[in-house]
């Protein structure tokens, strides 16, 4: 690891994340002292998982660019595997599913080559057509539409969206002198996760009016609006360190992340509700599965990516 090669701002920001986690630990410690009758196990488990996730993420982001890219591919793999394990699949589609998995390393190669045109169409054009064609060639048409639809959607919300995060790392280095592509990824991830947390906290504190009780009974207008305001404020605060955004652009970016994060979260809730499950797996103690944690990112990553590429000169 060559720390001098990593933009200073990224290291400061990572230090900030860990400082925030220490504060979270202190708050839980105080809460336990003040209200010993309440059970804080769930909260403690959540924060412990945050430590693990933040450490793994920090390591993967600072070691080496190709390690960062393969780390994202691995996260896509875990998320896609989790998705396939919770949806109904057809026995005859084993080979098709194998091909769908192969999309992840191939997509990573396009990203490493910096071949944007291929990266952006590989999954939604070639992979989608190829998977459907494979299913046709197998010759079993019962449940075909459902099978092809669920498989494509799975690849879309895992490999394709997380791939956008990876592609930001291979953006040309000089466009963002403050922190490079890594800075944008960090900006996206920090804002998305803090948006989740702040919507949760605002909702817990002031939540009254439910947004869509049928999908997610915990989502309230108060939580949503509080979250949007907090995320926009953070986006504006962090932008000078991690991005090349002007004040106006940072506010738009914050609004996009807040809104998209909310929708991503709801989409995963809808999927789980449809399947009749509570968590997508038990991989991350206190959080559920990896998809439970990535739900908001699956929406924020591509939308933030495209916003960035719109404001980026000469993209």
């Amino acid at each position, binding site marked *: 690891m060559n720390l001098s090669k990593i933009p200073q701002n990224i290291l400061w920001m990572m230090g900030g994340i860990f400082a925030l986690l220490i504060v979270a630990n202190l708050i839980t410690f105080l809460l336990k002292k003040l209200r010993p009758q309440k059970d804080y196990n769930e909260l403690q488990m959540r924060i412990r998982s945050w430590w693990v996730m933040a450490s793994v993420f920090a390591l993967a982001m600072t070691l080496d660019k190709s390690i960062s890219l393969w780390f994202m591919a691995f996260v896509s793999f875990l998320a896609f*595997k*989790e998705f396939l394990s*919770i949806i109904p*699949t057809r026995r005859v589609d084993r080979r098709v599913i194998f091909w769908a998995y192969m999309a992840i390393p191939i997509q990573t190669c396009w990203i490493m080559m910096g071949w944007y045109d291929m990266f952006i169409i590989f999954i939604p054009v070639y992979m989608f057509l190829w998977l459907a064609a494979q299913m046709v060639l197998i010759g079993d048409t019962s*449940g075909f539409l459902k099978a092809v639809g669920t498989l494509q959607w799975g690849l879309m919300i895992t490999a394709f969206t997380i791939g956008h995060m990876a592609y930001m790392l291979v953006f040309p280095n000089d466009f963002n002198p403050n922190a490079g592509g890594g800075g944008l990824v960090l900006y996206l991830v920090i804002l998305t996760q803090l948006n989740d947390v702040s919507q949760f906290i605002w909702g817990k504190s002031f939540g009254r009016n439910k947004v869509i009780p049928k999908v997610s009974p915990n989502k309230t207008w108060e939580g949503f609006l509080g979250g949007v305001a907090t995320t926009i404020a953070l986006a504006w605060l962090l932008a000078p360190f991690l991005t090349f955004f002007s004040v106006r652009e940072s506010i738009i970016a914050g609004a996009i992340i807040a809104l998209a994060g909310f929708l991503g979260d709801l989409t995963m809730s809808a999927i789980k509700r449809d399947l009749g499950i509570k968590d997508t797996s038990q991989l991350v103690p206190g959080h559920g599965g990896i998809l439970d944690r990535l739900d908001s990112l699956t929406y924020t990553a591509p939308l933030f990516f495209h916003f960035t590429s719109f404001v980026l000169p000469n993209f």
Partner: protein
Amino acid sequence: MLKHIFFYLCVKPIILIGLGLNVRNYERFPKKGPAIIVANHNSHLDTLVLMTLAPQKLLRKVRPVAAYDYFCSNPVFSWLSKNFLGIIPIKRTRSTKDEDLLQPCYDAIEKQQILILYPEGTRGKPEQMAEFKSGIARLAQKYPQMPICPVYMHGLGKTLPKGSFIPVPFFCDVFIGEALKWNGEKQSFVDSLRKSIEDLQKQGHFPEWE
């Protein structure tokens, strides 16, 4: 030794990272021999997953009971399965009238080992449980104090079903039940064993696989 190298360098990383295990009630996994782990059988991976669950000190003692005619069909495969997995090969047909085919199992139990046994006798159709054979009842009857631990596994039949060679990753659920002991009657013992595995199955939520 070979078994440990094989498991720690090859099997464990592939299973824990490539598939991912969701284990319920791990505290019920046998902590010492003699004991028998009884599970439903869908895939060659079943044995590797169950052995992956064994703590390092116990791994040497865990012995899968396997069909002699399949695993010892050629000398290379036979050597590999004996040294890397430590299988107990069992013949399926008697050569003389009073030969007890379970004799190798008795020997292993006497040596305080932990057996892995699939009472369905074969992997059969993926993710479907076949009839249980009675060998497990004979072992339980002979060693009435020995704990017999029922395990239900789901997902491996999708990952690598009988007749397939390319594994396709899916999460693997492993639900471990309360250990049973011999209850005095063969058929009711087999029935209660089957029922406890079916009850474990009902604890889970498994998507359709048609």
